[in-house]
């Protein structure tokens, strides 16, 4: 069975990572299109309760590797488990969350399997391909779609020859969907005795400080986002004020984050978080495609920009022409004046 595989990531708290649930949901759809199974690999310790949580996403097989040394995550033992599994099972597709863990692990596996890997996909589809030189036809390939190169283009990447077809996807890009709360699959325990070797534990963890996610822009109903055009972290304070008044959160573009105006956790876009709030207020954001990839599903979009031709205006419901420092205080003022 050439299945679709998803690496199921376990968080610090021992839960399934959100991105993994999203990928299982997407993986189920891809498996349906390919008329195959959705399988997942679950690696860690004390995972007994987890399979029951993920079967409802349409998982047919959970490959379980449970061992005290497999938590917290370390590259080599996790990679060894997956490489061994993939060599036995020959997956058609393998998806990983583009997290600290997934981006550490997936390239290691692609190298060992000598297969292609596409990072930070914003869309995954199934389609055919005709190689123009050889006139060879490939059926049912995974189209790995991502913005590339400064966001001026959208590239569709394929791996015609190598398997699995591997991709990483950021949290929030795919939607979580439970297929059937009674969906039942099989659990297959992986025999670790021949897989784990002492040398895989050469890197020792001395100390860890993992914090709760303090900033949760993903679930915010209102997002006030700022771009490089906001100008400074001082000017961002206005955005925080508006967000607070509206009961929302502050987001930012990569340029604003790179400039040090706000922390990285607030970055929205292809290499940040994908959001779908009720209201998205884009302040001084020109609207590069990587940024839009992370917010264009917002229910309502307001753009505040001095440039009437900024690309973001094309997807905005309202465009206010003017400076952020003039308009944002007015929004605060008139919101306060008109809300009960």
């Amino acid at each position, binding site marked *: 069975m050439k299945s679709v595989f998803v690496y199921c990531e376990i968080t610090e708290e021992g839960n399934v990572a959100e991105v993994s649930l999203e990928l299982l949901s997407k993986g189920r759809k891809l498996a349906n299109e390919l008329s195959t199974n959705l399988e997942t690999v679950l690696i860690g310790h004390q995972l007994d309760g987890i399979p029951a949580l993920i079967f409802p996403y349409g998982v047919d097989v959970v490959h379980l590797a449970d061992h005290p040394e497999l938590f917290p995550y370390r590259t080599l033992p996790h990679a060894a488990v997956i490489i061994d599994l993939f060599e036995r099972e020959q997956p058609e597709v393998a998806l990983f969350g583009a997290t600290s863990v997934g981006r550490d692990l997936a*390239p290691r596996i692609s190298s060992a399997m000598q297969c292609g*890997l596409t990072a930070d996909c914003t869309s995954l589809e199934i389609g055919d391909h005709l190689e123009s030189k050889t006139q060879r036809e490939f059926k049912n390939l995974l189209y790995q779609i991502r913005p590339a190169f400064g966001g001026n283009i959208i590239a569709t990447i394929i791996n015609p020859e190598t398997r699995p077809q591997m991709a990483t996807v950021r949290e929030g890009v795919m939607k979580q969907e439970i297929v059937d709360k009674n969906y039942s699959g099989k659990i297959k325990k992986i025999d670790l005795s021949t897989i784990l070797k002492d040398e895989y534990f050469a*890197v020792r963890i001395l100390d860890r400080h993992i914090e709760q996610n303090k900033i949760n822009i993903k679930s915010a109903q209102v997002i006030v986002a700022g771009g490089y055009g906001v100008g400074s972290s001082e000017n961002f304070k206005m955005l925080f004020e508006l967000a607070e008044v509206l009961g929302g959160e502050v987001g930012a573009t990569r340029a604003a984050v790179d400039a040090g105006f706000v922390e990285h956790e607030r970055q929205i876009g292809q290499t940040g978080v994908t959001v779908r709030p009720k209201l998205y207020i884009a302040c001084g954001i020109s609207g590069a495609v990587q940024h839009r990839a992370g917010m264009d599903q917002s229910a*309502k979009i307001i753009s505040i920009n001095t440039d009437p031709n900024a690309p973001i205006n094309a997807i905005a419901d309202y465009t206010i022409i003017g400076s952020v420092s003039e308009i944002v205080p007015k929004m605060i003022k008139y919101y306060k004046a008109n809300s009960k």
Partner: protein
Amino acid sequence: MSFRIIVLAKQVPDTRNVGKDAMKADGTVNRAALPAIFNPEDLNALEMALKVKDQIKGAEVIVLTMGPTRAAEIIREAMYRGADKGYLITDRKFAGSDTLATSYTLYLAVKKLLPCQMVICGRQAIDGDTAQVGPQVAEKLGIPQITYAEDLVTVSEDKVVIKRRLERGVETVESTYPVAVTVHGSADSCRPRISKLLLKNKHARTVTELQAETQDYTELYANRPYLMIDEWTVDDLDAEQGRLGLSGSPTKVKKIDNVILLHKESTFLTSDDRDVESLMKELIGQHIIG
């Protein structure tokens, strides 16, 4: 004992300044049309390598880069900041490499320079943001990897302690050698050029660059052999041909779409008080806010 640190660095097109001619018809990057810079996180990596060198007597830092002739610029740049030697891996046969083919090529080059204790590179390059090449080189070398390194906590001749930057915190790990390290942009910035080293190394050239020079460097290079930036082509690497360049790259670009915006009927407003107030009233009325 000898202690060798190999830094993998890349000259990248400055993607912050992309013009119309940036892409070729086959979907690969037209590097010639863009300004070229030292990949930012590779500079963080170079700094970490130099910090190791500062602390371990007799350690040497070797910079490896793969690219066209002009990529020798970043090797000189690294030498001005304290790197001891550089190698340029350059051949038309490497063109069109994806991360897998790139990592294979770099691996072959690193293999020629073994034994080494550490291979250090930036987490990712700004022209692709994939963060794949470091772990892929580590896998091919069969050595452990420490990704997202932020701080060199301690280093000795036997082991290194590194603090890693994760999404939600930090982790401190210890490893023996050899080990591959990828460095995060939050690590210390690279030290500036050192004028003494600038004077010492400003005539460093590759063979190809020397051929283009009008000045005769024969005598200078006889006295100062370290100025020679070695060029390695396919013939210098013990490569399986099928694993190089475009043909050795499993990922193919099926198509490139220019970005087309789905136009909404955007209502244009002014910054006028009346406009802003009526908008806020409307949003409150629709229960979007409030």
